[in-house]
């Protein structure tokens, strides 16, 4: 019998409960506190933590109902142990441990970033070995190398400053667009000219030192300077052109590094994940560049790209299937959990 795994995700502002049986997705319930953060222009950790505690059991009940299962049918629990906001992670980890004790099943503390790649198995089947994952969201921007050895993951590169989603948020604020910035800029850019303004591509000239890393803080500064200069001289800011040009710069840098990572490692497969994977320009550019380079690109549907419990359950299912030992009950929630950590506290 293939194990039923329940996954809990509370690393940022989404409370996610997912249930899988092997690679079969049975439920994926998400409660988001994004509306509560909108008026602050970013995620407020204490607001997110409070919302997780409120949303946890209702999401658990909805997930069981939509899977047509009882909690007692669950064979293992997987929970995001990091990286993320520590106050938020703690709510999920505490609930996961109690579920494990109450049900008498093993608990796996797993890596959130791995989940963004492995989740695609629920939609498109087993991952190729190796696969390069490009993860872009408000909280992270990373390039990962995932190999078949039960979710063994190597970090190739990451952002040196802002995450891509943060860059969208900050530029949106400069342009008077709402939070979260990603969807707002995507919409505004539709009527804009992506070649109108040549915004900088962070680290473009530093391929030797930072082959797969990203930097977006310079972009934000450049946009601020450009917008302020127009406002000072009394000109109207062409919001659509700025949005399209910013989006072009971000997508260009991300897909350039993705293709380089595939080429250098010989990986013929890539997965795009994270909330920013919903960005239409990023998807189109990644698809075109991967096709030209002979790379098969897989992009999970939006509900599996944003933070969710199914991605955590998917990692758990892979670990259970491979017979990897569980985490025990005293593992921590680690805000800076290293990419290479596949099961927290499981390999002592």
């Amino acid at each position, binding site marked *: 019998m293939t194990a039923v795994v329940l996954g809990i995700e509370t690393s940022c502002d989404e409370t996610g409960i997912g249930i899988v049986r092997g690679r079969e997705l049975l439920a994926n319930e998400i409660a988001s506190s994004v509306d509560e953060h909108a008026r602050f222009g970013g995620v407020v950790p204490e*607001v997110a933590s409070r919302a997780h505690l409120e949303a946890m*059991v209702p999401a658990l009940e909805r997930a069981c109902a939509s899977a047509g299962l009882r909690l007692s049918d669950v064979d293992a629990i997987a929970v995001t142990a990091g990286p993320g906001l520590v106050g938020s992670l*703690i709510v999920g980890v505490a609930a996961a441990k*109690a579920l494990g004790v109450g049900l008498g099943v093993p608990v796996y503390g797993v890596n959130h970033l791995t989940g963004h790649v492995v989740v695609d198995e629920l939609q498109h089947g087993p991952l190729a070995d190796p696969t390069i994952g490009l993860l872009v969201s408000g909280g992270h921007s990373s390039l990962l190398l995932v190999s078949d050895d039960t979710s063994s993951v190597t970090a190739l590169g990451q952002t040196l400053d802002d995450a891509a989603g*943060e860059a969208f948020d900050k530029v949106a604020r400069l342009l008077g667009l709402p939070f979260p910035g990603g969807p707002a800029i995507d919409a505004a850019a539709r009527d804009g000219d992506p070649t109108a303004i040549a915004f900088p591509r962070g680290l473009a000239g530093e391929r030797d030192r930072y082959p797969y890393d990203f930097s977006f803080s310079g972009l934000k500064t450049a946009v601020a300077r450009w917008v302020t200069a127009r406002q000072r001289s009394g000109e109207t800011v062409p919001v659509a052109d700025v949005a399209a040009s910013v989006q072009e710069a971000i997508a260009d840098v991300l897909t350039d590094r993705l293709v380089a990572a595939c080429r250098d490692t010989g990986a013929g497969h890539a997965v795009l994940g994270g909330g920013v994977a919903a960005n239409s320009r990023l998807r189109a550019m990644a698809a075109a560049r991967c096709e030209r380079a002979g790379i098969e690109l897989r992009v999970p549907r939006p509900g599996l790209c944003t933070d969710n419990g199914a991605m955590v359950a998917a990692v758990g299912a892979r670990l259970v299937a491979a017979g990897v030992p569980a985490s025990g009950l005293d593992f921590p929630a680690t805000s800076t959990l290293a990419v290479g950590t596949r099961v927290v506290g499981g390999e002592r």
Partner: protein
Amino acid sequence: MTLLAIDTSSALSSVALVDGEDVVVERTHHDPRRHVEEIGPLLDEVRARVDPATLDAVVCGVGPGPYTGLRVGIAAGLALGAVWDVPVVGVCSLDAVAACARSLGVDTALGVALDARRREVYWSAYDAAGTRVEGPRVGPAAAVDGAVRPGTWVGAGAVAYAAELGRVLDEEVTAYPRAAWLARIAARELASGARVDVDAAPLDAHGTDSGATAAALRGRVLLPPRPLYLRRPDVTIAGGAS
């Protein structure tokens, strides 16, 4: 009346299984920074003695207390309630300290104070019969209203601010809330027919000011299993937005 209780509202994490007034088992761990690590082993040790078929309820200490730790016990309690399909109720954690102090023979008016960081205390006051007459509130010890300031104080916060509060009973068992006392309080309430008033507002997700909470909680012992935050969230954007 068999109850499993959890409290992580202070530096002491505790889990207990109580049958009426009798403590079947209680496990504690003292560390202000390891609630989420320790809750697993503590629950596991007590679980061995639990028969879910005869369990009447899960009791959570709902604080007040430092939020990150406080949420650990409540999240765990809510999850166990879902697994075992039993009701989950809350009890003000300060009430557990007061009940413990009365068991030591304190039969006068009593105050409980626990550390609230930022040089403040979480506090509440009880009359000679043990009824909470003020609080829970949060504020500097020196600002505790003289009109309700009782004769004797207990709790780690009272020990730390003895100069401001007055006569302090400094006993190890009254330093922090303990799950066994939460369970005894809930057992008495449930046995006498009390039920959780889910409208015991204002316990909304964003908390509220301490005065309004204290007023709303006057006379209420069994509470919804939701944290008594008493302070609004600090608005600091994640990632240090600039």
